[in-house]
């Protein structure tokens, strides 16, 4: 699903955020990406979502070489990716329903046909009854779940999350991880950037560890427990 081949990213000014990273995430796999802040986690996600371009090397997403994607084609690549953000990036002047419907509207589904799919997604994250509320009236955990519903409503083959539990307490964090696991069970490839090692050590998935822009480990989350 995602293949990174010898990628490097140097920002203007000379800072090399990623150097020579190679890894391969199979379709249907779920993996974590970890490392200190500044290790290059966010940069890696930005390269996959074409917010940034690689300086060297190539990113292949679902068989498509992203360095060949032209500017105007970027939106269509992003539609294959459901994105979950740390600060969930919901639109505060729109209801929960409208927030979740947005990806459907963007990909050209008529508004009258969005209802059932939006409700199915909201049902999945357990927020069906809150569809008419505004994000501000929800708790942080609920807001993050709306973010997840928005990410999956289009049934993208890939789900990317950048510190999805960064603002949540441990119990809520586990619940959110449970949601990601559930979507992985129905075939979605999931990549989660997090530094919450305590949380992921309880799970058993693939783990990429970045350190100062280099991939220093490609193992499983159980390695964390063994190391401890």
């Amino acid at each position: 699903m995602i293949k990174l081949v010898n990628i490097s990213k140097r920002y203007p000014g000379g800072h090399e955020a990623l150097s020579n990273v190679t890894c391969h995430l199979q379709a249907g796999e779920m993996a974590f990406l970890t490392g200190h802040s500044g290790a290059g986690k966010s940069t890696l996600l930005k390269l996959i979502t074409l917010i940034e371009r690689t300086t060297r090397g190539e990113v292949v997403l679902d068989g498509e070489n992203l360095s060949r994607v032209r500017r105007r084609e970027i939106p269509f690549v992003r539609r294959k990716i459901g994105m979950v953000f740390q600060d969930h990036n919901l639109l505060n002047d729109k209801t929960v329903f409208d927030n979740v419907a947005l990806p459907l509207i963007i990909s050209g589904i008529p508004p009258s046909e969005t209802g059932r799919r939006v409700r199915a997604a909201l049902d999945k994250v357990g927020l069906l009854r809150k569809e008419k509320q505004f994000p501000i009236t929800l708790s942080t955990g609920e807001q993050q779940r709306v973010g997840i519903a928005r990410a999956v409503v289009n049934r993208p083959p890939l789900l990317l999350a950048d510190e999805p539990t960064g603002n949540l307490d441990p119990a809520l964090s586990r619940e959110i991880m449970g949601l990601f696991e559930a979507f992985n069970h129905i075939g979605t490839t999931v990549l989660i950037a997090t530094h919450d090692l305590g949380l992921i050590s309880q799970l058993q998935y693939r783990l990429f560890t970045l350190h100062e822009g280099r991939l220093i480990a490609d193992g499983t989350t159980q390695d964390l427990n063994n190391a401890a």
Partner: protein
Amino acid sequence: MVPRKNRRQRQTPQQRQQQRRRQQDLTTFIDYESDARTRQKTHSALSRYFEQQAWVGKAALLQLLQTPLSTLMTAAVIAIALALPTGLFLLLTDLQKIVSNWQGNAQVSLFMKKSISDQEARLLTKKLQTWEEISNASHLSAAQALDEFQQQSGFGDALDILQENPLPAVIIVKLHRSQLITGNIERLTEKLRELPQVDIVQLDFKWIQRLNSFVALGKRGALLLSGLLAVAVLLIIGNTIRLTIHNRRQEILVTKLIGATNQFIRKPFLYAGFWYGLMGAVFAVLLIALLFWLISDPIHRLSVLYNSTFQLSGLGFVGVAYILAIGVVLGLTGSWIAVTRHIHAIEPK
């Protein structure tokens, strides 16, 4: 460390139940999914397109109505900018109509030389009547002219003292409508002046021509003014949309991250421009109607004094259609310029 299998066994019944429920939800999720796919096929591409357009248009309108006061103010500025030149233009057009009515009575007085007898003057009158530039010519002998002057001037008694009629005979020539163009009038006057019998040729409508020129100048000015104000409307709408884009920067970033194309992001702003233009135009129409209603009474009184049945013509159906179309075109253009300039600059970082 505890192997994973053991952990799973340690799950509480509640957790297991929760997991089962989640699995069920997923099935419904997938069911809904395939259901939605089949439903899509029943809609034609065209009807989907129109449904989306209507949806975006309505959403843009609701967005504007969320801030009614600022929307109203923008629309009012546009309305004034549209109504001002239009109202001026309409008034001048009406004035031009009155002037051309007066011009219909345009006449030239030919004063005969003293040596010309009534007989000769009558012959000349007959001859002039055959000219195609002239619609009518009538002869007024020196005696008749004196009579008329005595009656109209009130100097009757004083004139009696004169031993000799000081007035010349006159031929009053009414011009054909086709002659009312500047060049033709000059040519005809020259022709009349060359007649041996004629002493003086006097145009009685020079002032109407001057007035007409002033009105034409005014109309040209109104057109130039409307051009300037159209640019002003473009700037107003452009600036308003630019501010809206700025305020909704975060929203644009998020939608771009989710996979929105620039066209998709542009649409609501174009619709906002459309609504601003349309609202401004509707207000402009109302404003013109109000202004004309306010001045209709004084104008009526004035026209009664001139024995005229003149009435202001107003915008009319075509005029209203024009204003609405101009408002919409200006709104769309203004927002298009703003959107094209600013949306590209907003990219997720």
